[in-house]
């Protein structure tokens, strides 16, 4: 089947898509967007987290047909060219990246949290990231990164 979907602001079309394919497969294998990672393929690990119509979902649990006519924003769509999103910069600076496989999904989940809750408490951060597993178990630095991004966002807002 044919799937038309807006991805990171661009109209994209995929042809000869198998009905059993996931949005994740389409992104990675058909549309040249390998940022979203393929790990558990059952919605447990969050490595494939993308925005679908502005809310984060697991792309591995979205059938290709379900995205027809909808808007997707992937981790590739967060930065403006080389200018990283503050959440991405905070992950780099806090050392929140070990093997890196969970990072794209965590960045999207944290990005969504900070849009909704600019100054989250630790329990709020933990719950917001509960659907994202880090097999390196590097959670402390990940929490540091989210706190850093929140602080930065708050001081940036004041500066403006």
């Amino acid at each position, binding site marked *: 089947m044919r799937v038309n979907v807006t991805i990171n602001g661009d109209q994209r079309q995929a042809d000869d898509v198998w009905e059993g394919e996931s949005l994740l497969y389409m992104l990675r294998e058909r549309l040249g967007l390998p940022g979203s990672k393929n790990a558990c393929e059952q919605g447990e690990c969050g490595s494939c987290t993308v925005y679908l119509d502005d809310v984060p979902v697991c792309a591995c*649990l979205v*059938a290709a047909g379900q995205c027809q006519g909808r808007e997707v924003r992937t981790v590739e769509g967060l930065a403006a060219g080389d200018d990283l999103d503050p959440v991405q910069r905070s992950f780099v600076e806090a050392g929140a990246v070990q093997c890196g496989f969970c990072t794209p999904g965590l960045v999207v989940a944290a990005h969504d949290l900070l849009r909704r809750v600019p100054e989250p408490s630790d329990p709020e951060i933990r719950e917001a990231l509960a*659907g994202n597993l880090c097999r390196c178990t590097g959670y402390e630095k990940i929490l540091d990164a989210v706190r850093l991004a929140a602080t930065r966002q708050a001081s940036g807002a004041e500066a403006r």
Partner: protein
Amino acid sequence: MKNFEYARANNPADAVRLVGDRPGATFIAGGTDLLNLMKDGAQTHDRIVDVNGLALTDISHGNGFLRVGALARMADVGAHRAVREKFPVVSQALLASASPQVRNMASIGGNLLQRTRCGYFRDTGSACNKRIPGSGCPAIDGENRGHAVLGVSDHCIAAHPSDLAVSLIAVDAVVLTNGPHGERRIPFGDFHLAPGDTPERENVLTHGELIVGLELPLTPAAAKSQYLKLRDRATFEFAVVSVAAALDLRGRTVNDVRLAFGGIATKPWRSTDAEAVLRGRALDTATIDAAGRAAVHGAIPRAHNAFKIDLVQRALSRVLHELGGVR
């Protein structure tokens, strides 16, 4: 995953016909359980009918009811102000379910139809009476820590996994459907089926019948309600045991109470026996303990899940003490 045809419905009648016409067809809303079941091979379909285009996402209240469209997402319903204020038990059950990503995708109607997390059911290499009727139930003498102690049969002891359904049975929700034989209103207590001799039948829906919404009656008890979920880790985990309680006190006396349980039963489990122990009595620790004993009367423990019988009574005790302000 086996090959299937993907169809889109433009209105409920379309959806009902597209599934009703084909024995192997089913609906897809969020798909968060269906797609995993199809990947695992625990369920196969030759046609999937996407109902996400139907206008069934509204949440509204008036005339003594809260109405929730079947396609409203778990996250939206859980966070909705009227749900939080009038049905805290429902909001709490939703927000204690799954992960943020899954709650953003999964629909209310689909949540009620999710299949059990019994490992033997999900594993096509195992026998399972629910998946292949007559093949046997390895859980009865096998790994059954997560399994049910109430509503069980010799054919199946799989626990029902939904938190939402436990909260809905506690507030006397009604399931609204549209099917090949027209519209129906199904009281929540009649919706799910205990396994009995036919564990493959989990609810009373006929083939092609679509859940279009829920109706929740506004009551004083529902407005003072609570969901307690005990699990093996703090979040993103199914209930070991859970309690949904709604309580209306007049002074210290129980005017109205609704009690339902998850993790311990083969379907969302309402205990009118436990409610009867409390109704009209002063709420105190002795009465609460008696209600707990009534709730687990007739429970059948297995090798690894007997602890649930004690645990659920303690969970009930905690909820009623908190809700009722009993020290």
